């Protein structure tokens, strides 16, 4: 026993315990995100619960916990129908439940507004639709919904045409503004020409708008009558229904394909209901755009700095200072970069560009406000040290013999660098780049100051000249988490969506950094054997 203590075995076990705790926490973190994020889209069965006080509710069991007083359980049901009940969730004591049944005809509707509806279908009114009434109301509803969604798409196309038109008129307005700013009398002819073109466009737009309004009004007419668990009727326009399904009749395969459809919606569609429902496409797109733009700035600068440190600089005071500077760049809090970006890029350079090139639009800022360009530049400075450190590692792992071989054949230092050293250090550079991208994808604090928004009306990349609008604000997955999870009015209802976003962001970041770390470890091994 004494020797056991003296030899320090318990202490070894103590250190092991520390590691276990750490690993356990990591597992819990990943596990919580996975469980909550993956389960959200699975259409669970809806239970019709009859309570002892005679009332009924229809909902999906979303949580259970120990009852506070009795020995039984408490069940949380997602009952939906926010417009009827005011709340999406309801807690029920198990002892208050008389019966639970799983009716086949219970319907769950995903709606454009007010969250899900749980209830039963009563009848469908096909006003203005071509679809025939089928044998059962449910079949009729399905047919009608298909037609409505087709009509909706046509309407959306018209909407797109109108949006293009209005952006063109806006361009014209700005052009006219610019011309009149630089001299209203000198450019009179041009201005009147542009004005008449703009007016023509506006007239066309008005005609379209009227047609658009008519069709969208017509689209509101077909509706269906539903009843909730208590039998109360609710008239819902078909256009307000995004998806209708009967979870209790769905088999595993039907549920899986439903799940796949939801994932597709998540990745490719626009958000609904102030970001708490629908897709994440603009946020994913914005994140990717911003990260790519950032790489364009941070990669060359980082590689050049690393080459300087490894290949050109002589060891000495300056190199030590540069290394300290690099480490400080890596260690300065990200919010400080945000503050710098705001002061230097947005108000400094952006404000300067506005005064020089867009004086006619002031005080409405063009570049003098947050945008994807400024966000990318800010994050580029933030991630440069990552590229530097990793590239340096890559350069260090290139054996000396190869360099000397190249130099002895008469190549200059630059030729050696370009043709021998850099190609061999590519894995290191790539590692750095991927790590930098992972870091940038997850960083939120500086972005909040330099251009991220909760809902961007347009993507930074589109079909109108100059196609890539670097002055536009953008959406970002990380900010989406913060915004929906902490700024939305109904946090409880928004939580599942935040878990899904978190899962997505976590998956992207972990996949990217695993790849980078894997590449780095491989690189270390490759040259470790060659060097000796």
């Amino acid at each position: 026993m004494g020797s056991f203590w003296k030899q320090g075995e318990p202490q070894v076990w103590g250190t092991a315990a520390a590691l276990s705790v750490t690993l356990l926490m990591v597992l819990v973190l990943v596990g919580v995100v996975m469980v909550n994020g993956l389960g959200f889209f699975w259409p669970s069965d809806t239970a019709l619960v009859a309570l002892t006080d005679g009332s009924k509710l229809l909902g999906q069991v979303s949580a259970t916990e120990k009852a506070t007083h009795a020995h039984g359980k408490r069940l949380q049901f997602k009952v939906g129908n926010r417009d009827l009940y005011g709340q999406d969730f309801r807690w029920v004591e198990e002892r208050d439940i008389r019966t639970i049944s799983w009716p086949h005809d219970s319907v769950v509707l995903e709606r454009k507004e007010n969250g899900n509806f749980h209830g039963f279908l009563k009848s469908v009114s096909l006003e203005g639709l071509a679809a025939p009434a089928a044998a059962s109301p449910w079949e009729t509803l399905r047919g009608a919904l298909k037609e409505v969604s087709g009509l909706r798409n046509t309407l959306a196309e018209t909407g797109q045409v109108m949006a293009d038109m209005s952006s063109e008129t806006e361009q014209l307005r700005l052009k006219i503004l610019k011309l009149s700013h630089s001299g209203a009398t000198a450019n009179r002819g041009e201005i009147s020409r542009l004005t008449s073109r703009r007016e023509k466009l506006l007239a066309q737009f008005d005609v379209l708008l009227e047609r658009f309004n008519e069709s969208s009004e017509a689209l509101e007419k077909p509706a269906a009558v539903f009843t909730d668990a208590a039998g109360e009727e609710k008239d819902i326009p078909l256009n307000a229904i995004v998806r209708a399904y009967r979870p209790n009749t769905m088999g595993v395969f039907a549920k899986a394909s439903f799940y796949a459809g939801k994932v597709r919606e998540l990745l490719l569609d626009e958000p609904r209901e102030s970001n708490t429902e629908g897709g994440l496409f603009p946020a994913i797109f914005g994140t990717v755009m911003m990260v790519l733009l950032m790489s364009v700035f941070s990669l060359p600068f980082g590689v050049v700095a690393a080459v300087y440190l490894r290949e050109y600089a002589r060891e000495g005071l300056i190199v030590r200072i540069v290394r300290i500077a690099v480490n400080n760049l890596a260690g300065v809090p990200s919010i400080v970069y945000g503050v710098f970006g705001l002061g230097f890029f947005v108000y400094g350079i952006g404000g300067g560009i506005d005064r020089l090139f867009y004086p006619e639009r002031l005080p409405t800022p063009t570049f003098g406000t947050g945008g994807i360009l400024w966000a990318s530049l800010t994050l580029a400075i933030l991630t440069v040290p990552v590229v530097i450190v990793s590239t340096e590692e890559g350069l260090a792992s290139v054996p000396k013999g190869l360099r000397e071989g190249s130099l002895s054949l008469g190549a200059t230092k630059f030729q050696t660098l370009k043709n021998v050293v850099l190609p061999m250090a590519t894995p290191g550079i790539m590692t750095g780049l991927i790590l930098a991208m992972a870091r940038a994808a997850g960083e939120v604090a500086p972005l909040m100051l330099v251009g991220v928004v909760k809902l961007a009306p347009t993507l930074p990349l589109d079909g109108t000249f100059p196609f890539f609008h670097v002055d536009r604000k953008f959406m970002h997955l990380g900010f989406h988490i913060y915004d929906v999870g902490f700024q939305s009015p109904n946090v409880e209802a928004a939580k599942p969506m935040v878990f899904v976003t978190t899962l997505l962001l976590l998956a992207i970041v972990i996949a990217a950094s695993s790849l980078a770390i894997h590449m780095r470890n491989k690189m270390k091994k490759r040259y470790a054997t060659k060097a000796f």
Partner: protein
Amino acid sequence: MRKEGVKQTSSMNDRIFSRAKRNDRLAAWLINIGGLLVIFAVIWILVLIMKVALPLFLEPKAGVVASFTLTGVAPAAEIVGIGTDDNLQTGFVLDDSGTFSVFDNRSGKVMETLPVAPPGGGRQSVASVAEAPGRRYDILWKDGSFTALKVDFPGAEDRDGGDANTLLITTLLEEVRTASHPLPLRSLARIPEGKNPLRVNLLEGNRFSLAKKTVSEDLAGNETSRTVRSEFGGDLPGTVSSVALDGKGEFLYAGTDTGHLLRWDLTDPESPQLTDTVKVSEEGHPVTALNLVLGDVSVAVGDRAGSFSTWFPASETGLGSGKTLTRIHPLAKHGSAVEAVLPSQRSKTLFSLDKSGSINVDHMTSERRLLTFSTGKPLTHHGVSGRENGVIAVDRDKRVTLWSIDNPHPEISLKTLFGAVWYEGYDKPAFVWQSSSASDDFEPKLSLTPLIFGTLKGTLYAMIFAVPLALLGAIYTSQFMRPRLKNYVKPAIEIMAAVPSVVIGFLAGLWLAPLVDKAIVPFFVAVAVIPLVVVMAIFLWQKFGSTRLFKRMAKGYEFLFLIPALLLGVYVSHALGVMLESVLFAGDFKLWLFDVLGTRFDQRNSIIIAFALGLAVIPLIFTMAEDALSNVPKNLSAASLAIGASRWQTAWRVVLPSALPGIFSAVMIGFGRAIGETMIVLMATGNTPIMDWSIFNGFRTLSANIAVEIPEAPVFGTLYRVLFLSAVLLFIFTFIINTVAEVLRQKFRKKYGRF
């Protein structure tokens, strides 16, 4: 032919060589610049954010705009008031015949004279004038009649149109003295918009009379108005030498020639109450100037010896009751008697004129003497523009001088940023951050101390949690773990370093915080039980599992065997905790905490932050510490093991001391990261800037404060610059920490010659 060919190639070679050499030189040049650019970038960032923050500490600037002698005013008339518009274009004086003379501020040419008709009729001269905020003048005529009026520059409001040089006089109240009332010495009125006017007169013999119109509505909706009158005062210490009334007409202040300050509560006009009598001058110097500071909470008092201070009611005991007027901010002393005090209508700045004729500009909260103005001749009256951008003054010879002031950040001094400041409405000096409020006359409280405190509190708690776990885990991973396993565990924790802080913050705020909130007692039980369970598991292992086979099997895998023990610990502490809570705290620990210890329990508290921030820095510290431990040359540990030391003895006595600089640097880097972390603290604390070490409270850090406030801060305003200043502080904090860490690491690398 052949020779020529050779020559050609060699000349071509020369060209290639020279081009290659040129490229080489160019590349070397570019790359060197690129390297130096990194240093430049760091310095540039610091310089730039400092440049924005620096104007906070610059002295205010002022300059004479114009100086001229007024010739358009009757030579016999004595000037009793002066003012200027907000654009410093047009000025006016009021003389003792009750005439406003409007003049151009550049040339001094009088453009208009506007006599005010005394309500009593005929020609009257002015007995006394009191200036009230918003360019309002209360004129008491010699015959005892009274006019309250307001002066506006309607043209100055819109910049493009309108004649900026017109003066609009609006009469607000006119009263003729009836013979039954005594002749007042001084008269003040308050006429709230849409409400009932109130007038206070100072009479002979220290008496005051009060008249307030009240409108009452009966059930049928008929309005009847009547005037409530009362008289008060009389037996007071000394003779009243100055009076002031607050904006709503609720409090009357009077100073006496024995150095006393008195305050009456006028909320009940029928019986005003004398609430305070305090001695403001220990030596008994008469109070010569009295006025309220913007916001009507503080009153500025100047005496004949030149002492100048502000006072407001505060309770000595700190209990909120029994408030008495207290000297809050002693301001810089004047050389002679303070004659008049004018408050700014924008900030808590005070413009005071003394007998020697110089004007001092002080800020109340920061107690800074901002500026001093004087001319060769003593000035007799002064006026302040509404935007606080100019001061106009006149001397006995009717020489008018106009100064422009550039004073953007008067409320900032090192003391207001870092020290305890006695803010209005507080009972003692305090460290407070409260940047904005709904009302304009709000006193901004921009103390960075609670934020620095919050930053340190969060960092400290996180480090207490993270450092032991990370370092012990690193020791285990580098020294005792099977190498094959290490190849999986280490990358796994490295990947954790890449987990975005917004993810950790979200989980901490919306998942962990409610969980801990529900299970706070089990949590505390776990802190005690889990180590106990681990120790027991080790003992059990020693007792029953120490056969050779088991021992060999477990070597390097100990941490896997401990995971079930930990899970058991979690389960036991949960069960035990629920039981304890119902037995010891009657089923509600939070209620007990509040009732018995008086501590508030926030759902998002420091425990959550310790976990979340700890989890964010553990991978960082772990990875770097593990690297440092692994880089200690193997021959050292091999030698130690060879002479018979156990694996723990080797790790503890040989490897750890050698790797100490590297480990220290790892902890420093983790510390730096925790200080600047934004999203986690933003999401997982309540962001309340309080100074309290309690683990059940939240806090607000410098970084989260920037994220919360900067979107709302007007560009280049005081708040904006203060936020930049806090960014500078963060930068400097982390700069020092990172530099120390890097220097240590470079030393460590040199010692063992590894990359």
